[in-house]
């Protein structure tokens, strides 16, 4: 998603007819705002867009020729996109050291960079087992397990509710993330936070594996301080309208209520898709900038944005 955002902004530069720098900046800002508001979950997208905008502001200061500046930005945008794959390989290489022979790893949902890391570890002839959470409602855990089995890594899918049950058998937890916030906390697929809490309670290391272009300038104070949070998530049903419906339905109401409760689409829409894991639950973050402690993330972000 962040890469897609950068790509689309580069495309915009290519077709931009702006004649002055401020006009050009304005159009870029508008576009990134539009991108952010177009999706329900804008966290990783805004990380990419903000990073590129910041890059534009920095370079536009020292270039006097506007056309050359545009050319330069387009090229560096392309480089940024091309580097994305190489970055993942670098992270995987760095992360392998955290997997020891005969280890049992727990992962959550599906993440490209975690997959790559595990495959890399297997290529290094490290023998290990993986538990994968099913990760409802997307069930992306099943996809992860299939990929691992194909790579010859023993993988077992567990229920999201079984994390506490398996945690004692686990040596380390690995997760990817949609975004890393300013204090080093994670924003990731729903369930990551409870995984981290359980890992902390069992004294198991909890590693986040993440590309540095996913660092976002956000500072959530709690779960409800995220841009993805809306008031209709996990809201209690409006009892009055419900009573009215019930009285209309009449005798057969019990069956009808049951059906409504298990209306999967409605139930998924009312549930959050991501949660926030505070930094105190994270052991280390494995990034392309090196292996960082959560407070190191803020260090990097300050360097980038100050």
């Amino acid at each position, binding site marked *: 998603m962040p890469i897609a955002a950068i790509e689309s902004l580069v495309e915009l530069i290519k077709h931009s007819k702006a004649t002055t720098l401020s006009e050009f900046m304005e159009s870029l800002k508008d576009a990134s705002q539009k991108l952010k508001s177009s999706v329900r979950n804008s966290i990783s997208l805004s990380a990419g867009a903000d990073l590129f905008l910041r890059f534009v502001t920095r370079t536009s200061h020292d270039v006097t020729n506007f056309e050359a500046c545009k050319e330069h930005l387009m090229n560096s945008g392309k480089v940024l996109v091309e580097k994305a794959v190489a970055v993942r390989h670098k992270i995987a290489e760095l992360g392998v050291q955290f997997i020891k022979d005969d280890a049992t790893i727990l992962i959550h949902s599906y993440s490209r960079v975690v997959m790559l890391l595990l495959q890399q570890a297997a290529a290094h002839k490290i023998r290990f087992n993986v538990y994968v959470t099913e990760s409802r409602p997307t069930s992306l855990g099943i996809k992860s397990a299939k990929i691992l089995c194909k790579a010859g890594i023993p993988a077992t899918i567990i229920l999201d509710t079984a994390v506490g049950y398996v945690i004692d058998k686990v040596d380390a937890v690995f997760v990817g993330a949609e975004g890393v916030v300013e204090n080093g906390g994670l924003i990731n697929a729903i369930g990551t936070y409870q995984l981290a809490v359980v890992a902390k309670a069992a004294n198991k290391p909890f590693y986040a594996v993440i590309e540095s272009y996913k660092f976002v*300038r956000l500072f959530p104070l709690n779960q409800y301080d995220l841009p993805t949070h809306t008031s209709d998530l996990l809201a209690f049903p409006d009892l009055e309208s419900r009573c009215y419906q019930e009285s209309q339905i009449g005798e057969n109401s019990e069956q009808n209520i049951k059906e409504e409760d298990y209306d999967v689409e409605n139930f998924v829409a009312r549930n959050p898709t991501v949660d926030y894991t505070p930094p105190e639950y994270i052991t280390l973050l494995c990034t392309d900038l090196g292996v960082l402690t959560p*407070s190191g993330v803020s260090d990097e972000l300050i360097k980038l*944005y100050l």
Partner: protein
Amino acid sequence: MENEGNKKSIKERTKAKHKEKQSKEMNESSNKQVAALFSHLEIAKGANASLASRDIHPAVLVIGLQFADFKICGANARCIATLTAFKKVIQDYKTPEGTTLSRHLPTHLSPQISYLVNSRPMSVGMGNAIRHLKLEISTMDIDLADDDAKLLLCEKIDNFIRDRITVADRVIVSYGLQKIQDGDVILTYARSSVVQALLLEAHAKGIQFKVIIVDSRPRLEGKGLLRCLVDAGISCTYAFLHAVGFVLKDVSKVFLGAHAFMSNGALYSRVGTAMVAMMAKEKNIPVIVCCETYKFAEKVQLDSFVMNEQGNPDEMVNISTTSTPKAGLLDGWLHKPDLKLLNLLHDLTPSKYITTVITEVGMIPCTSVPVILREYKQV
């Protein structure tokens, strides 16, 4: 401040030390009544304008007296007052024959500074501001004419006040507004100028929120904040520090002001702050500190005992809640040899109790204080 190999300044310093000794002897009687564990802490000796040397500028004399009487208190107010007074000192300064401004002005300033320190120990922010001023003086072009140099210095002082304090406060308020939502109940302790500005601005923006002001004896600074917020029409609750556990159950966010931030991420602020932060963290309530970056200290401090400031113990005797003093049970404590009073002014909140710090460079975790110090040094 320390690296002045100037013989003259050493002489002046020894002179100042001698004077300090004299005034220490004068205060000996009250020193006896200080709790043994805290005898190393600085006590505001109270400015004595008649003892001050002729060199002290009248503007500095005035603020010295105001500092000692807590007529000007709060880190920002004191820093601005000091810099404004020093501007007057610089404007009235004439370089003596045979020396240059950049060499002589620092030695002219140091007795003024030690006079201020004598009237009340200097805050970290003031120290940083003065260090900045001295750096500006020492890096000035030696060939610059006196009047031009003075003009330039005054401009630099104005810039410092603007960039690091007044504009910084406005930026902090704008960041803080993002974290105040409809329905919030905000708890604050004592009085901080930035938190006050933030709450007033949030109210002006039409955000519906309530404020709980926690306060404590003997200074009761929260009363000033209470009056200010109630005048603006904000719904407030006023409670004492011992009730903090009770009032916290409705609170959604805690906003605190700062006196200084240490390099290890510890907050040095009005005594009682640590307790409020600890209780809030215990209840999983976010603790947000508003602090300008000029208050960041390069020191590391682990507890409130090594460095602190003692207030006048007599403040504790007065139990009146109005302006007319009323002596309580402690009246006549000086004559009871076994009774010692301790009136600490600050305490230290460990970084684990602080969720975030709002500075003019953005919201940062308090572990990033040394990063900001490092980045500023490079500039």
